[in-house]
């Protein structure tokens, strides 16, 4: 297993046995990754494979001949077309900059040079978008290893440092404009690794590796994090210990006035910065939970400290008791309805980390150590919470869980479940895909595993094309109730073939189980089918080790099973009765 913080030399030396062990895992999903190298990529590929295998992705690679990336993308390439990549990674760096400004050139000539360099890349990205319609991961540029003008190099128009900064800024702009373009920030990576170490000229001249061999595992990990984020495999929840993790000292012993938090002391300041880091994660959609060995009342008291950055309502789940932490963490996962491998556990105590990791190997447990000045760096460099987009859903996420907690409390008042549902005053919006939701729709399609009939994955370009194609009926569902807005939480895509609908995708977020939203969605599907004079709907269930909860869904909806394959795949048919009327739900649809 690969542990954080990474030990690049260990990974490089042991890669063959690590790969052998990781390949023993079953349930690996294959992804086809084409790598375009502007320099030697062999080790990049090997390291990338390890990081992807670690998270259940088995990569099938395609490489071009050395440094022929531009020609092979711009011109028709039948081998690459046959390969049909899921992802294309463009491994360029500043060795691939065609030409730097010469000292004689004018501002407008340098601007033209910049434009031509960017255009070269835009041509590649456009070509990929039209031929392969797959996500592109693109390196930006690291700073140069010398500055002919010294410090002046960064602001004079002839400076290489200035030129690279301009290129990077335009790359970022393009990435904001193009939804399928993702930047791998080697500018940051090289800076953090240390520019001086990054440039290993011996290896460049001998083997044409553009960076220090030791940086390659880190670079590959960065690319892997982006790929995992694209497929919805970023971690969802950070579970935090309290004593000596979120504040200095032990609250049970030191009391509220004795714990170290706030800017009065250096130690307090360090813990304050760590709390700020956790808060930033929460604000962009990472769920925070507490798992502490403390009396609950003491644990909660720590957050009433006036200098505490985090407050009780920043946490979606709060477990403070004397039970084993691995049991508590399992409960946290269950109550959030997420799988164990979506959790990251941060604890200063090596023994606690060891126990949790050995009892639940799926939980990510970075070696946080017990030096608070290093916590942020260690967590940040794991890439566990890599983002590839930021939606209002992400920003609202922890409040969704907060609302859910309120719903659970509210439910206790009702003996009859339907009465409870009625009391929620649920409303939903169930309509065809709209451009404003495509980001969220793609995200949901890639990360939903449990309530998912076919587990088909599509990238954003494919979703855009489906939503514009009249051969498809698309439905998204948003659900609100009096406690709050759950957001967009269900998707159906039906393909129309021979006047029949074949359900290609039907999924729903675990946040809204047991509300009968699936009935409301199905109702709308039938309504849309009837509008097109279609009377037959086919449903398909492909079992995985995560979606057994929907094995009986079609039967529940009134379908008849018409076939069963050896892998357990089932096919179902529904003939829409003329008087179809499914009112088994208490949701007001499209009011």
């Amino acid at each position: 297993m690969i542990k954080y913080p990474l030990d690049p030399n260990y990974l490089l030396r042991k890669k063959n046995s690590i790969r052998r062990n990781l390949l023993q895992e079953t349930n690996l999903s294959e992804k086809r990754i084409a790598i375009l190298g502007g320099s030697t990529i062999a080790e990049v590929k090997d390291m990338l494979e390890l990081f992807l295998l670690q998270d259940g992705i088995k990569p099938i690679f395609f490489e071009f001949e050395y440094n022929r990336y531009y020609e092979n993308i711009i011109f028709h390439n039948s081998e690459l077309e046959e390969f049909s990549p899921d992802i294309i990674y463009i491994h360029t760096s500043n060795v691939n900059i065609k030409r730097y400004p010469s000292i004689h050139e004018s501002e407008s000539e340098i601007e033209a040079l910049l434009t031509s360099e960017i255009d070269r890349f835009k041509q590649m990205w456009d070509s990929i978008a039209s031929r392969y319609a797959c996500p592109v991961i693109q390196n930006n540029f690291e700073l140069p290893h010398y500055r002919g003008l010294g410090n002046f190099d960064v602001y004079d128009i002839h400076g290489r440092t200035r030129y690279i900064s301009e290129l990077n800024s335009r790359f970022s702009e393009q990435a904001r404009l193009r939804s399928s373009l993702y930047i791998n920030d080697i500018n940051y990576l090289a800076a953090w690794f240390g520019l001086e170490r990054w440039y290993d000229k011996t290896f460049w001249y001998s083997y044409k590796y553009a960076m220090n061999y030791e940086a390659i595992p880190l670079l590959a990990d960065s690319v892997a994090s982006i790929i995992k984020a694209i497929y919805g495999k970023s971690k969802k929840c950070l579970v935090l210990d309290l004593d000596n993790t979120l504040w200095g000292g032990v609250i049970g012993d030191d009391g509220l006035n004795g714990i170290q938090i706030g800017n009065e002391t250096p130690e307090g300041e360090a813990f304050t910065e760590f709390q700020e880091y956790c808060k930033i994660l929460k604000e962009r959609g990472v769920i925070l939970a507490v798992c502490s060995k403390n009396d609950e009342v003491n644990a909660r008291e720590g957050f009433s400290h006036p200098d505490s950055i985090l407050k009780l309502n920043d946490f979606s789940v709060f477990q403070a008791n004397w039970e084993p932490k691995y049991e508590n963490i399992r409960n946290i996962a269950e109550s959030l309805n997420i799988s164990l491998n979506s959790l990251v556990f941060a604890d200063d105590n090596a023994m606690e980390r060891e126990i949790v990791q050995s009892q639940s190997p799926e939980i990510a447990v970075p070696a946080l150590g017990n030096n608070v000045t290093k916590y942020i760096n260690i967590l940040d460099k794991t890439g566990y919470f890599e983002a590839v987009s930021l939606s209002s859903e992400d920003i609202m996420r922890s409040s969704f869980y907060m609302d859910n907690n309120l719903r659970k409390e509210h439910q206790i008042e009702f003996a009859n479940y339907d009465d409870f549902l009625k009391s929620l005053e649920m409303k939903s919006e169930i309509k065809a895909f709209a451009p404003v939701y495509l980001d969220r729709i793609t995200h949901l399609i890639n990360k939903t595993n449990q309530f998912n009939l076919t587990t088909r994955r599509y990238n954003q370009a494919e979703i855009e094309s489906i939503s514009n194609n009249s051969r498809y009926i698309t439905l998204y569902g948003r659900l609100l109730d009096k406690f709050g807005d759950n957001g967009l939480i269900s998707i159906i895509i039906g393909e129309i073939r021979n006047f029949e609908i074949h359900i290609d995708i039907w999924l729903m977020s675990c946040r809204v189980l047991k509300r009968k939203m699936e009935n409301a969605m199905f109702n709308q599907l039938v309504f849309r089918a009837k509008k097109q004079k279609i009377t037959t709907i086919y449903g398909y269930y492909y079992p995985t080790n995560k979606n057994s909860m929907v094995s009986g869904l079609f039967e529940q909806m009134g379908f008849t099973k018409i076939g069963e394959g050896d892998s357990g795949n089932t096919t179902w048919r529904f003939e829409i009765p003329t008087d179809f009327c499914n009112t088994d739900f208490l949701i007001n649809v499209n009011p």
Partner: protein
Amino acid sequence: MINNQVLNRIELIFHDIFDDDTLKIGRNTNATDIKGWDSLAQISLIVAFEKEFKIKFSLEELAKFNEVGDIVDIINKKIEYLMA
């Protein structure tokens, strides 16, 4: 450090790089003796030697690596220099 110690540590590196505990490495071992010893593996070996012995090979030294004995000699020279 005597020749044997360097060779032993090199042998362990070969075990890791090729994921094979049974390999026996001697001064005359070269790429034709080990399956999978291609140019990529050669680079992996070099990187591992540099880390293990805390040295850096120069461009000329890298070009001279034909059999294990060559590397043992270069490493010994560099280690003596470091210890001097």
